[in-house]
């Protein structure tokens, strides 16, 4: 039995085809059996020697060393950043970039905020004279307006009192409601008017008939 197993291992090492069932069986056995796995190593070594593929420094048991190395390796949860720590120049660069980046972002954010403040102020200045609504009627009328106005209230309360702000907001909302109501009613009336065009002829007809009756009488 074991003889045949050694034979199978030999043919496996030489990349020869073996009946699948038996080869699987042998591989399983080999993983359990020290003798068989030793044979596997030895046959490989023999093969290497015959083919003249042995390295100059012969390390007979590489697998044991690898297993040791793996055992020594600390378990790494997060991959280390591969910074070129040895290269002083690149390290400097990275630091500089790190310093500049947040500053730049801050500057952009600040300028955007500045624009918004200017924009909002401009807007409220306009509403003093003529209330020009946004060009688009929102399907959800309130969504677009609550935010900018409340933001505005914090920024320039010197120029405007709180109550002014509140009334401006109310006006805006009321205005949106008005437009929305008008728009939907217009659409509704157009729908209903289609019915009328068919009926008006009848109505006119009946009116004419009535006139005729009166004349006849």
């Amino acid at each position: 039995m074991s003889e045949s197993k050694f034979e199978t291992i030999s043919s496996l090492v030489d990349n020869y085809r073996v009946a699948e069932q038996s080869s699987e069986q042998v591989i399983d056995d080999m993983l359990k059996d020290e003798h068989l796995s030793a044979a596997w190593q030895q046959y490989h070594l023999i093969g290497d020697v015959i083919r003249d593929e042995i390295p100059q420094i012969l390390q007979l048991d590489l697998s044991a060393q690898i297993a040791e190395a793996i055992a020594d390796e600390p378990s790494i949860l997060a991959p280390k950043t591969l910074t070129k720590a040895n290269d002083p120049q690149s390290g400097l660069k990275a630091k500089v970039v790190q310093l500049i980046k947040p500053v730049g972002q801050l500057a952009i954010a600040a300028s955007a905020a500045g624009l918004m403040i200017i924009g909002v102020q401009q807007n409220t200045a306009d509403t003093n004279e003529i209330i020009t609504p946004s060009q688009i009627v929102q399907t959800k009328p309130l969504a677009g307006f609550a935010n900018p106005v409340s933001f505005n209230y914090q920024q320039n309360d010197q120029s405007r009192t709180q109550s002014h702000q509140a009334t401006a907001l109310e006006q805006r909302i009321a205005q949106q409601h008005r437009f929305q109501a008008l728009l939907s009613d217009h659409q509704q009336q157009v729908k209903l008017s289609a019915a009328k065009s068919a009926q008006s002829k009848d109505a006119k007809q009946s009116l004419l008939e009535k006139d005729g009756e009166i004349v006849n009488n």
Partner: protein
Amino acid sequence: MKSLSLKLPIKLSFLLCFVSACFSFSAIAADAEQAKFSLERLSQSLRQLNFNTSFVVVKNNQAEPYHWLHGVTEVPLSNRTDTQADTAKQEVELEILALLNGPRRDILRVGNTVSYIEPEYAPYSIASAQISGPIPAVFGRDISVLENNYHFVSVGKSRVLGRAAQLIRIVPQDAHRYGYWLWLDQDSGLMLKLAVITRKGKLLEQIQFTHLEITESLSENLKQLQVTELPKVIELSAKENNTELAWQVNWLPDGFEEVKSDRHRMNSSKQAVEFMLFNDGLVDISVYVNPSQDKQRAVEYASDGATLVLNQVVNNIEVSVVGKIPLSSAEKIVNSVSFNPNKLN
């Protein structure tokens, strides 16, 4: 002698001018004829073909998708005597237009009954042969009513929805309304794209078809519609539609005629209003008048795609105008409203 030789070329050049003018006129006339023919074909196709199509309305940076089905079926005439009913058949149009996003908004039509299913109201039907959706109903009807106020121009060919399309422009004859551009399928004559455009060429709103299928037989949905019981038809008496009001609109673009005038409450705000509706065949303009709590309010306006909503308050009276018209026209209409002091109670 000299004068004679001079006269001849002058005469000749006049003649040439005249001839070339004739040619160009006839070319324009032919263009207009062709455009009108295309529009008539569209109208016919919209009434006679079985089609299953989808389109999106693009306005305010938003797209509203719709599904539109149309078909024609034959039903026996019901109002004849029994002996005639066996042979007499009547063609009935079936139509479904459904908004695909948001709450359900369906329009169903069987012949001369149109039903609206909307979130704001209980389902209702009206006696009408046309549905009022995003596409002006006039394109499926007699388009010659537009000839008084618009020119038809056949512009050129292009490719829309993967099909060869003919571009027809409906150009207003004055500056008080918008133009409509239609891309029509060369095969079926149906619409592939529609755009509302200002006189300066700015695009306000467009309808792009995304799918078009023309079939021989009725689609399954329409067969179901045929046997569906529609909501009850609401009666609109002629009197309700022609109420005499204590004000009048003194200026409207040429060709707009009064469709109706009444008093009603707006559905969303419950505000009682006096109302007039005008139409030029293609565009509807609503004018609202109602008392306001404010003493004065300057003109305010907003637009939803091509539809403009404008309102102002003068001496506690609020006047509003809604319609697919330019701002200048709406302002002129609002300012032209005058009140009859005798009739004000």
